[in-house]
């Protein structure tokens, strides 16, 4: 447990030092989301209708672009070897690195999301559900992405491969993430909002659990073979 917190705190400190690591994902998120009103025209109804999809797709892309960061720098400067050798459990170490990634990428995205949602005329109830869905969904994005990050270490052009490997695996999260908000927006009575969104949120939780199980195992196996 000590090792876990140690890794998380070190990664956080690194991210805070090189501030741009922190801002990059959010900045990309906000700028890209703002392109859509320009591309689609300013009809409020249309924008509100597609807002959940746009926000999720943009969040997905922002996470995608920061995935290479999780392990690549450590791999290149030799820290990864030290990590593998010094950690009692590689699985725990991977979870720690993913947590640090989520704290520096997913969490800022969640904080920026209401802003975008307001720009797109989403109503408050939908925004609440959006936040809950993102809280459940973005950790899965970091977890699944970490697998791709470890698999492409040392590959000829790892950065190109990551989208190809990761986007197909992100699709379920996207579908249920959007589904939850759409369900909330379509429910006529106020009380039914949560009830309607619940199945989608449960599925997001299930994805999170599955990836919490798979990522440490697959990631540890991938890391070990990357260092051979």
């Amino acid at each position, binding site marked *: 447990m000590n090792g876990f917190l140690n890794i998380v705190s070190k990664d956080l400190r690194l991210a805070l030092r090189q501030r741009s690591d922190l801002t990059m994902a959010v900045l990309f998120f906000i700028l890209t989301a703002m392109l859509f009103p320009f591309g689609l025209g300013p009809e409020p109804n249309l924008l509100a209708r597609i807002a959940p999809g746009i926000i999720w797709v943009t969040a997905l892309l922002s996470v995608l672009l920061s995935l290479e960061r999780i392990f690549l720098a450590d791999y290149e400067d030799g820290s990864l070897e030290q990590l593998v050798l010094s950690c009692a459990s590689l699985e725990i170490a991977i979870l720690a690195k993913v947590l640090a990634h989520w704290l520096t990428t997913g969490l800022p995205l969640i904080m920026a999301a209401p802003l975008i949602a307001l720009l797109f005329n989403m109503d408050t109830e939908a925004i609440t559900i959006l936040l809950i869905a993102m809280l459940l969904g973005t950790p899965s994005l970091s977890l699944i992405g970490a*697998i791709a990050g470890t*698999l*492409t270490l*040392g*590959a*000829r*052009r*790892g950065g190109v*491969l990551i989208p*190809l*490997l990761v*986007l*197909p*695996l992100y*699709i*379920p999260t996207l579908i249920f993430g959007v589904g939850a908000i759409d369900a909330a927006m379509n429910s006529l009575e106020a009380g039914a909002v949560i009830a309607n969104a619940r199945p989608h949120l449960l599925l997001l939780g299930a994805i999170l659990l*599955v990836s919490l199980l*798979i990522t440490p195992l*697959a990631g540890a*196996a*991938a890391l070990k*073979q*990357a260092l*051979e």
Partner: protein
Amino acid sequence: MSVFHRFANPNRFLKLTNTVLPWVSGITVVSLVAGLYMAFFTSPPDYQQGESVRIMYIHVPSAWMAMFIYTSIAIASVCSLIWRHPLADLAAKASAPIGAGFTFLALATGSLWGKPMWGAWWVWDARLTSVLILFFLYLGHMALMNAFEEQERGNRAAAILAIVGFVNIPIIKFSVDWWNTLHQPASVMRADGPSIDPSMLWPLLIMGLAFKFFYLAVLLIKIKSELIEAKLRKYRRAMVDSA
């Protein structure tokens, strides 16, 4: 384990391949001809879908193969990671392009069937979507396998990906049950036996058999070819080293 090591020797494996291959090819050709004949001449048009049902005899076997080959790759990957047997890596590597080909066929023939039936080339329902994801997984698998200078690293990375991606297979299979979709629910591979008329079931099964043996034949040839390539690489290296 012991069965596995029976073929551990590449030469023994090559010998086995050479005796088996003619039979496999023969079965492929015979069942393909029989299947096609039945598909076009003995099977009746569907009472709802008319003649267009004849696309089924390639669409469904292709879809089966898409899932079957991915499953084989995942199994081979488990073997490769646990026992580190090179044959498993070779099988996975040789299977991926064939699987991608069949997945493409399932998508393309499905689209060609969907246009007259549903009025659209493509709809975003769960079955179709998950097959599309499968196609991307195949592409990712092939790309990852070739992304490393060292073949062994590529094999290992691709194996891990194949196992992770396997979660998609049950989703494809059961998507029609879990979500209400445009696509037909299962009518052949069901727990309570097939619910399809024998006059259509037989050609379908025979075509399925033909596709499976086609896969086996191409797979064996590909592995053989890879083995020869390994030998070539070794000779070349020896020549450089001794020079």
